[in-house]
């Protein structure tokens, strides 16, 4: 009897099931909740399905998700990056300056801005690795440094004469559907990140040091270098989100990024990324960002009195997250 059972266990070993299934269930729950809200708002919130609304809804979700990604990659190694907004704002201004003052072509300007964002991320990582200080406090301080530096250099003057070819990525609709090219950029990023975390050594390494830094180091992983890459990637994504915001706002304004810090945690956290590290969900982050954008847009359209809106938003957010957790538990997640 025992022998047959062992054989059964062994044949099943080849299947990749178990925890993967649970994660899928959680995601499914989130998908159902989001879809539920879409159906609800389509039925009861006048104007929800109008092209105009959908265009903005998807665009702001795309930016929120990209900001969420910038946080997610550092969460994956068990760190935090409180300077996502500062990096997004500073690199956005940098891109604006390149395009407006130096006349650099948009593609090159964005590339340079991304490079700047990456280096700022590297700077964060260098401090984290060298000083052994908590990433929370390091990036809290660098956020001030970066924003301060940007203010000093730009005197807070915005750049608002940006080339149409650049603004197009946020403003135009794609072939008659209410989707901006921005949204496709975000989906592209999501695809790449999904592959990184699923099937690359780098993704695995980031998750490993996020889950247990000590064990990862004692398994021979180059912890310092991986921290460097993760923070660099975070800077890169923050810069990308900065460029996206500049395009969406028509302007490189010094205020961009000032309110990203909290928001950056929301999409990953709803999506099932562990804030303590070691577990991320790329598709969850996408859904999380979409869910928040959906709820706030839908509630606004439902004539929820404005000042009470945030009460509803908070309540619905809690409900959504709570429901998601309950579904996961019912789905069989171990305690």
């Amino acid at each position: 009897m025992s022998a047959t059972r062992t054989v059964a266990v062994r044949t099943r070993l080849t299947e990749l099931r178990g925890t993967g299934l649970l994660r899928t269930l959680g995601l499914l729950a989130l998908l159902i909740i989001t879809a539920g809200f879409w159906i609800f708002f389509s039925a009861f919130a006048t104007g929800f399905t109008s092209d105009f609304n959908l265009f903005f809804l998807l665009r702001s979700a795309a930016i929120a998700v990209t900001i969420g990604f910038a946080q997610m990659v550092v969460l994956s190694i068990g760190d935090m990056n409180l300077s996502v907004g500062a990096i997004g704002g500073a690199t956005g201004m940098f891109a604006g300056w390149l395009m407006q003052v130096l006349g650099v072509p948009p593609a090159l300007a964005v590339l340079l801005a991304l490079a700047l964002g990456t280096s700022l991320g590297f700077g964060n990582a260098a401090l984290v690795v060298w000083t052994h200080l908590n990433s929370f406090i390091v990036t809290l301080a660098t956020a001030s440094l970066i924003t301060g530096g940007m203010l000093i250099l730009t005197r807070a003057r915005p750049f608002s004469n940006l080339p149409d070819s650049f603004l197009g990525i946020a403003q135009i609709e794609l072939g008659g559907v209410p989707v901006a090219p921005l949204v496709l950029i975000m989906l592209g990023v999501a695809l790449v990140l999904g592959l990184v975390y699923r099937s690359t050594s780098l993704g695995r390494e980031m998750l490993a040091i996020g889950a247990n830094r000590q064990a990862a180091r004692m398994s021979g992983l180059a912890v310092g270098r991986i921290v460097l890459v993760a923070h660099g990637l975070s800077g890169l994504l923050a810069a990308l989100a900065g460029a996206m915001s500049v395009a969406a706002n028509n302007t490189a304004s010094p205020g961009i990024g000032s309110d990203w810090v909290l928001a950056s945690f929301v999409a990953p956290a709803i999506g099932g990324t562990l804030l303590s590290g070691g577990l991320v969900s790329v598709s969850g982050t996408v859904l999380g960002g979409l869910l928040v954008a959906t709820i706030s847009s839908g509630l606004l359209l439902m004539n929820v009195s404005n000042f009470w809106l945030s009460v509803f938003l908070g309540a619905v957010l809690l409900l959504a997250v709570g429901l998601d957790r309950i579904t996961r538990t019912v789905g069989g997640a171990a305690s």
Partner: protein
Amino acid sequence: GGTQGGGGGTTAASVAIVPGGPHPYFEPMRGAIADATTDFKLTKGSFEVPTDWKQDLQNQLLTSLASKGYNGFGIFPTDGDAANGIVSQLVSRGDPVVAVGGCVHEPTKTSFCLATDVGASAYTAAKTVIQAMGGKGVLLHGTGLLTDPNTQLRDQAVKKAVGEAGSSVTLITLADIDKDAQTADTAINQALAAHKDITGIVTTAYNPTVAAAKALRTLGDKRIKMVGIDDDPTTLAAVKDGFLVGTMGQNPYGQAYIGAYALDQMHRGCKKKSDAPYFIDSGTLLISPDKTATYANDFKTLTKQITDGFKAKYLSC
């Protein structure tokens, strides 16, 4: 967009006034849009406040209002530059947009900006204080977010006034202290403690004004001359009791009222005259102790004047 906007109709407009965030300054606009709705027989009028000072929230709110069928927008941009994104989208839909209370910065698709001339107002305020100081002494300037371009205009205006006074006036600038009452209160008091020689204060943002007005009352010091901004009850009381030389009144009611009128006219087919200016001064006046009871009427009268002359002056129908 562009398919469902109601550009060029003959029906009355549905006008929404959207401030940049929650702030007592905007409360008179609520009454203004209600009055405008009856006076101009608008299809509907509403006043909706984003729950926080975030451009993203304002964008969302405007998007939803547009989706709900509003077709004329008076906005106080949360971010004077970044608001251009949403403005372009609204205008490309065929809906007229005007800025009320504070300008959306140029280049912009916004038709008009009905606002206080912040530079002129700050200049007047500074001039008044310097005069009250006897043309010499140390002047403290308390103002708002550095990332807000209005702050720069105010900063420049105050500097200009100080410059005109020659080297006898020293300027101390405290920026970024309009985040909340606490920040302003502590910073203003610390500045008063740090610079015992301060003889004048000019504030060009709400929280610093209230904080400084309170501080002067607490200190009981009438030797320090001050001009503030806005008509918060605390500020007004301080003016009345002589702690302030005055405060720069603005005209939020008029801004929203005239804005609603302009939007309705443009919706009915009027076009902005090619030589019409973008910025239209909605009026500002120094509320000195003797005017605390009457300034509201003065603004109502001014509002009526501007509205009556608006069509002829700025629009071609």
